């Protein structure tokens, strides 16, 4: 049970050529509280694993510091750090039985046999694999192997549990089950956990807080609900959940999207490079009364609700662009909607972003200076009394 602090953590990899240097992790600052479950979430190659491996001691930071319980650990090799890691690959030692895999670390600590025996059995019970101790890793399924790996990490009672996409090689159903088991175990033993994933559902359902990374940088560190409701950058807005994003032109108080306009929020600085983001559930709609006139192109039944894709030609000026950027709207199933129906949409809540440089394709070199608005500005349409208050 411990706290973690990353201070200006940076990692450069020298590429194959002398000149080519990858900035895998760029100046990460964050702190994790005792017993907290932090998820590091981001697209492939954004530096999640590298960050975790620096915490575990497998990569040496180019600069910056890793503090556990307030003390720097960067000079310690992995075998002396109070962290335990579960890897994405199956890393049970194939020539050792499950028992010996788990007991390996205990034996290094010179515990007596009875004590080791008890702790191995307890940890196997914790991950629900009682009676598997005589098996070899090859005789286990992938899910069982990762559970043993978890037991192997937990049996040493580390201060901190590090998990690098531990379930990403498993099928969807098993992934969800193991995720729930991990959650229960973590709550029970109250260990501080850092979990790396590129699966936002996994992050949203496990984490106390999520650190969203992109191109080596920390984009946002927040509670899951907050990340969803107030994505701090355009990248996060686009990456988390489903979002409609429209580039807008500002003219005084109005933000023009094609032939339509939205009210510019108060305190909005900057004239160009602005974007508006609307969640699919943040539209009110009717057959005729509404701001944006469109035609339903496709409806997708998603179980308890319906996703509707709407072509709104007025937003883009021409049909092809409108077809390429269909507006995504969630509707209750009680509402009648069929392809071909006319529909009028009014955004009831939207976020305005001015950080043009932060996009899906942004590189590691981001110009973070002179952003007129550090935060997106939220607008709730007064005319519509929504069920908001997420």
């Amino acid at each position, binding site marked *: 049970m411990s706290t973690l602090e990353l201070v200006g953590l940076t990692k450069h990899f020298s590429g194959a050529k002398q000149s080519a240097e990858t900035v895998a992790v760029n100046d990460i600052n964050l702190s994790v509280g005792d017993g907290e479950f932090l998820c590091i979430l981001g697209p492939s190659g954004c530096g999640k694993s590298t960050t975790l491996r620096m915490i*575990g001691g*497998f990569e040496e930071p180019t600069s910056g510091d890793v503090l556990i319980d307030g003390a720097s650990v960067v000079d310690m*090799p*992995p*075998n*002396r750090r109070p*962290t*335990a*890691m579960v*890897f994405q*690959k199956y*890393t*049970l*030692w*194939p*020539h050792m039985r499950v028992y010996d895999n788990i007991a*390996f*670390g205990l034996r*290094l*600590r010179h515990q007596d046999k009875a004590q080791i025996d008890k702790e191995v059995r307890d940890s196997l019970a914790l991950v629900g694999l009682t009676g598997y101790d005589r098996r070899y890793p090859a005789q286990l399924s992938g899910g069982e192997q990762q559970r043993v*790996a978890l037991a*192997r*990490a937990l049996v*040493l009672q580390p201060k901190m549990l590090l998990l690098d996409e531990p379930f990403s090689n498993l099928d969807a159903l098993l992934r969800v089950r193991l995720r729930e088991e991990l959650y229960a175990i973590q709550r029970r033993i109250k260990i501080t956990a850092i979990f790396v994933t590129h699966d936002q559902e996994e992050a949203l359902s496990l984490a106390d807080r999520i650190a969203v990374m992109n191109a080596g940088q920390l984009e946002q560190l927040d509670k899951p609900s907050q990340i969803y409701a107030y994505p701090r950058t355009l990248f996060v807005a686009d990456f988390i959940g489903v979002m409609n994003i429209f580039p807008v032109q500002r003219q005084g108080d109005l933000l023009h999207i094609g032939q339509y306009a939205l009210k510019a929020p108060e305190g909005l600085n900057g004239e160009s490079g602005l974007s508006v983001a609307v969640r699919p559930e943040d539209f009110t709609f009717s057959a005729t009364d509404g701001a944006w006139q469109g035609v339903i192109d496709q409806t997708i039944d998603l179980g308890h609700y319906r996703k509707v894709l709407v072509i709104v030609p007025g937003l883009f000026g021409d049909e092809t662009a409108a077809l390429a950027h269909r507006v995504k709207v969630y509707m209750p199933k009680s509402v009648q909607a069929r392809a071909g129906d006319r529909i009028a949409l009014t955004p009831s809540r939207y976020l305005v972003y001015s950080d043009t440089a932060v996009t899906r394709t942004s590189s590691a070199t981001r110009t973070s200076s002179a952003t007129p608005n550090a935060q997106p500005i939220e607008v709730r349409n007064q005319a519509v009394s929504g069920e908001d208050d997420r």
Partner: protein
Amino acid sequence: MAVVSHSPSMPVKSSVFKALTKTVRREGLSVVLIVALFTIIIGPMLTVVLWAFADVWRYPSLVPTQWGTSFWAETLARADLAMAFPLSVGLAVTVTLLSAVICLPASYAFARMNFPGRQGLLLSFLATNAFPRFGLYVSIAVVFYRLNLIGTIPGVILIQIVNTLLLMIWIPTSAFQGVDRSLEEAALDVGASRVRVFLQVTLPLVLPSLSAAVLLTFVSTFYEAQGALIVGLPNVTTMAVLMYSIINSQIIVQYGAIISFILWLPSLILLTFAQRFVRGNAISAGFGV
């Protein structure tokens, strides 16, 4: 269908034929391999065994005209053989051990470290095997002559080590490469020192391949004749060299047959022994650099 049912033997024959072609198609490669194995390896070996136990074998006969072991006593009583056998075993053991001491750490470095020229160096070991050896040996012999190594045991050891480099570098290198680094990292993570990680995780995982490399090295050194012939003569006569000279100087086939029979002994013993602890495909897997 109606036509076929006229003669009851037809469908049977054709189905047997079908089954046969099916087997050949499905197991085509293994059938070919087995046939090849017999004609290339078992066939000649069988001939040697027959010769070793033939007192008289005249031309038209397919098997020895007269069986017997009279040549065995004669061959085993030869003084040159009594000297050559322990010499060969001793040489093979020494060369294998020296080669292991030199090559195993080197192959770990090849597998785990990235240094400039790594790939080129690795390929250079192939060079000793990619070109006709005889030329290489002759030029080495010229150098050895200046160094007074011709006709000495150290000279033979040196030239035979050159011979073993490819096997002893390539197989262990690919074995070490085959050990996933994250297996080692996981051991480091639970508190093991680097030395312990090597001894308890890496080494056990590569041991089958390393044993295969060592065994193959021993056996091939034991049989090695060209290098030993050029550098060793006239003082150092190994079993393989002895066999060459016997076959060349005497027309009695039985001597050669019996000596090759004896030459097989160590490798037969070793390979039977090896089967117990070398995983089935380690030898072939070893070549997957």
